[in-house]
């Protein structure tokens, strides 16, 4: 008497209701906050119209967390805070407490357990990063490792608010760029066309879809060794890697191909200037795990040039806009090459059509 096991149907509940999990003071004063200030780096203090106050302590995490780390954070929240936390979009954890007296012991405990307190105000917050070798199917590099290696070096800037304005750093493990715009963005930049395994194309790839994916129409159908395959016009190819995800036999990664590039001046906020895209400043850097020292050097050079020279409240891109690109390349001692000249759609808008010259 075998009875077919009825599979469980999902409860299609969608986005979880946050209110049962929200700190009681946040729930009580939902939509009714009056002002805030920051007592020190990593600590926010919010005051509601009715007079309620809440203190938030922000700490950095490694994003990819084992259950023991999460439980440790829960233990800290249960003992030193009030059993409620939230996460920021940059993987920082926030503990809310209802009295100022709880702040110092909470910070002490977090620091003792190895969680840096900071990431608020004009600091360098945690790097928003992608998956990389740990879990992605098309990565050129690793995300968690690069973020860890860099944050080790930027630890002081996370735990202090000494930058002219906030600094947002992002990384991306391929040119699709799952990472967002950044004041500084560290992205894979391929330097060679894909290497094609012609034996596999016919069985693995939907050829018309792959051809359609190419931004510059450099891929065309071909018969190779009697088998249907694809070929790449290497003079046209811009080495973006767009063909690789739908067609893994078109391998874009390789030791001579996978390089890192640095972009600056991306901004999401509308404060002062409109949101902007980041701009290329450096490419051809080696993909050098586990600590990517060449990348870290360039990032620090740019970051400290900004820290020393920008005015209060200028974001990276606004600072460069004011001082001009010639001065930026002078201050950072990075090379300016023909590759910095845009040649994609709308490129003319990026060229200087004036007699405004920086000497």
């Amino acid at each position, binding site marked *: 008497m075998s009875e077919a096991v009825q599979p469980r149907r*999902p409860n299609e509940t*969608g986005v979880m209701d946050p209110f049962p999990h929200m700190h009681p003071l946040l729930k009580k004063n939902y939509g009714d906050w009056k002002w805030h200030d920051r007592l020190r780096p990593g600590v926010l203090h919010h005051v509601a119209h009715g007079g309620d106050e809440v203190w938030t302590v922000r700490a950095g995490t490694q994003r990819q967390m084992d259950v*023991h780390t999460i439980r440790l954070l829960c233990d800290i929240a249960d003992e030193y805070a009030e059993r409620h936390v*939230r996460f920021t979009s940059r993987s920082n954890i926030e503990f809310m407490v209802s009295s100022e007296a709880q702040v110092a012991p909470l910070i002490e405990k977090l620091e003792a357990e190895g969680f840096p307190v900071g990431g608020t105000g004009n600091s360098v917050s945690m790097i928003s990063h992608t998956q990389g070798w740990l879990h992605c199917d098309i990565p050129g590099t690793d995300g968690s490792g690069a973020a860890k290696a860099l944050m080790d070096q930027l630890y002081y800037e996370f735990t202090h608010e000494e930058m002219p304005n906030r600094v947002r750093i992002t990384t991306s493990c391929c040119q699709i760029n799952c990472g967002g715009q950044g004041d500084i963005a560290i992205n894979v930049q391929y330097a060679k066309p894909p290497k094609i395994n012609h034996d596999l194309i016919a069985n693995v790839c939907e050829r018309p879809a792959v051809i359609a994916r190419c931004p510059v129409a450099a891929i065309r159908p071909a018969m190779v060794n009697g088998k249907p395959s694809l070929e790449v016009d290497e003079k046209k190819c811009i080495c973006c890697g*767009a063909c690789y995800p739908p067609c893994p036999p078109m391998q874009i990664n390789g030791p001579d191909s*996978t390089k890192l590039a640095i972009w600056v001046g991306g901004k999401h906020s509308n404060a002062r200037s409109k949101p902007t895209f980041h701009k290329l400043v450096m490419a051809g850097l080696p993909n050098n795990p*586990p600590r990517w020292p060449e990348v870290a050097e360039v990032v620090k050079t740019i970051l400290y040039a900004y820290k020393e020279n920008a005015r209060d409240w200028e974001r990276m891109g606004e600072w460069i806009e004011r001082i001009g690109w010639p001065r930026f390349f002078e201050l950072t001692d990075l090379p300016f090459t023909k590759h910095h000249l845009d040649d994609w759609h709308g490129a003319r808008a990026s060229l200087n059509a004036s007699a405004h010259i920086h000497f």
Partner: protein
Amino acid sequence: MAKKQHKTDLLDQLEDGPWPSFVTGLKRLATDEGKPYAGMMTDLLGQLEHSYETRTGYWKGGTVSVYGYGGGIIPRFSEVADKFPESKEFHTLRVQPPAGMHYSTDLLRQMCDIWERHGSGLIALHGQSGDIMFQGATTENVQKAFDELNEVGFDLGGAGPALRTSMSCVGHARCEQSCYDEVRAHRTIINNFLDEMHRPALPYKFKFKFSGCPNDCVNAIHRSDFAVIGTWRDDMQVDQEEVKNYVAKVGRKYMIDHVIANCPTRSLSLNDDDTMDVDNKNCVRCMHCINVMTKALSPGKDRGVTILIGGKRSLKIGDLMGTVIVPFMRLETDEDFEKLTEFAETVIDFFAENALEHERVGETIDRIGLSNFLEAVGVEVDPNMVNHPRTSSYLRTDDWDEEAQKWFRRKAEKRAAKQAASQAAE
């Protein structure tokens, strides 16, 4: 008897340094004696070290899903399973967090317990789209893990050509600059389109993001197809006593150099008595002065949202910012939320029917032109949609007079509505 650990000379170097180390966490899982995931995490560390040595990734995709859904699982099969057999299947469940990423410790502990039973013990908080990523389950355990997470109240997020998991900022919950109820908007919109999330059938991905003010803390304008940004129409609120206190604290020079002079439309003026005038008609709601003077300044009271459409990252035509499609929409009453939902439905229907395969809606707009898009989604043209009018003379204008009439008719209607409203108020 614990499984023998692989040598991880390169990853070991990422245990040094002051920032919390994910490698230390992975090792704890790999050496968790008696736990079902220890063997899997041992081999996962081996494969990751192999990637660090060879500078190559070794995962490929495939097809894994849960009963009743088509998306939400990111399947990963190892290409080096001969060397690292126990992590040969290492799938991710993308799970939607509570809106605003609020957690009670009870909820986090439940997540850990479930993932310890059925997964790897590794959880990423959070992925770039805003998902909780439960990383590392065998094909067999994906369903078990989902069933238990679903019983707790979690639902899968989006993957593939589908509506994706959304994000909203902390907003109303703990921010005085928030201009609308982000949780309500986030849950109302996403929960209205769950079919598009769970059964991928769109031309490509579609993302909503919700930021409570123009600081855009969840990066909606660039990172979503449909950005909902809080704003206000009336005058910003100024507490002149607090303005004076601020000036007394930082000094007049700082106030002038860093607040007054940073206003992008020169709408601020410091008076001789250290109060501040605001030319609200020319203020563009950029947030700079409000960000700097948190106690003295705050958004106005007639609040709502601006909607921008078409933001996306590189592929295929290059990065795009969203474009203003709805300059202002109130978002307070049930009716307002219904209107937002209806508009989102119109845009998604347009996208589903008109976008080419693997084309984001911003690219569709680029391909067909903004005016065609506006006509398709029933929105009237507005000068807030442009930085400046066209500079190219290559256009045909034989219907100029009709189009101008439309503009004057709309203006007259708006005037009449305003008059009626003010009469009703009297």
